[in-house]
């Protein structure tokens, strides 16, 4: 239940600032999302470019990229996730403390990308961990990553702290630890995490 905007402005003119706890709480969280140093491939170069002087991501709150998952809020999966690396990605995600978010940057992290039919390519990291924002592109421009960051900030702003749609860290029944896939003899076991990635396929998107 947010405060009516006009009432807010009127009161503000009188020197009284009115807000809900939820607004303040989410404003604090979204203004300081610290990503984890996690670049896998070419998209990592664009991610680095986004943190440098021209496209500066620190303006948006991504002040410093933490090397440790324990201290990070956001994992930007940038680059192709190979099946050899996939268990490690899920393990690192499990080690992040709630509230934690994932941005799947680039075509490879979303679905396997141009290398989808490769023998070692995982067809999208959202098979194993929940992804909040997907950025299409190969690689997406730094501006696209900034827009994704802003989208994530909007998403955090809109998270209600109570009720059905509350985020995972406030819901004691929600799944906190995601199962790590095992590297079996021919493929990863399981090929996807059914709780995270239920895909209802309507058609195959072909001309047939």
């Amino acid at each position, binding site marked *: 239940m947010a405060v009516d905007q006009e009432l807010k402005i009127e009161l503000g003119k009188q020197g009284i600032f009115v807000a809900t706890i939820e607004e303040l709480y989410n404003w604090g969280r979204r203004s300081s999302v610290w990503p984890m140093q996690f670049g896998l491939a070419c998209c990592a170069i664009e991610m680095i470019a986004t943190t440098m002087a021209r496209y500066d991501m620190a303006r948006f709150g991504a002040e410093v990229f933490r090397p440790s998952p324990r201290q990070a809020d956001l994992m930007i999966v940038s680059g192709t996730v190979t099946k050899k690396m996939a268990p490690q990605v899920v393990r690192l995600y499990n080690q992040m403390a709630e509230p934690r978010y994932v941005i799947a940057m680039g075509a490879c992290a979303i679905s396997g990308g141009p290398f989808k039919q490769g023998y070692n390519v995982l067809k999208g990291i959202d098979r194993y961990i929940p992804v909040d924002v997907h950025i299409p592109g190969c690689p997406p421009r730094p501006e696209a990553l900034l827009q994704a960051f802003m989208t994530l900030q909007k998403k955090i702003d809109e998270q209600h702290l109570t009720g059905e749609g509350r985020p995972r860290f406030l819901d004691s029944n929600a799944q906190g630890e995601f199962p790590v896939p095992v590297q079996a003899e021919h493929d990863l076991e399981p090929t*996807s995490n059914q709780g995270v990635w239920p895909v209802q396929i309507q058609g195959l998107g072909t001309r047939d």
Partner: protein
Amino acid sequence: MKTVEEIKAAIEAAVPGAEVEFVANPGPAAQHSLRLVPHSAVAVAMFLRDDPEFALDFLSNVTGVDWPDKEIAEKVKVTREVTKTVDGEERTVQETVEETRKRTEPGCLEAVYHLYSIAKKHGPLVIRMKTANRSDQTELPSLTPVWRAAEFQEREVFDLYGIVFNGHPDLRRILMWDGFKDHPMRKDYVEPDDFEYEPTAHDEVLKRALEHRAAVAAPGLGTRD
């Protein structure tokens, strides 16, 4: 650098017991290669590296080739003795019949090395080694003791093709994980069944995606192995 035939002659003159075969490249690049035999390969490699005229000290690439087994159908004329009834009498007659016989020519795996010379600024010289067959005799001598650059690249060839390099200091998989069982770059490799979501499928991928959906709809109706 000398032509490939001259290099072959030089190797055979300098390394006793070396068997070197000239492999012509029919394409327009005409990059002919030399096929070595496993038992003398290391000696030939050392000669190529140490000889002052060739000085091929830079191994730039090791790769593998998979020659699959070939099924050959031949028409053979076979003469047989057949008992036939001719003019009411049973006689043994010789008959010539044309039969189509099928045989399988075993394929092989091959390792290909590209050599350059930094000292003399010439190259490339292409060297090959074939295994005996694709299934159980897939060993070749490792050229890592000669060129250190072969270390990782032979690991990659082992990982993707299955060629076991004898004498390699640390032969294990490099791209796939250690417990992986297949060799992905072989012609008969089948990708695992993770074709749940293929939005723009066509050709091969469409086939696999349809198979996957059929398998999901009716599980247990036959396996892919």
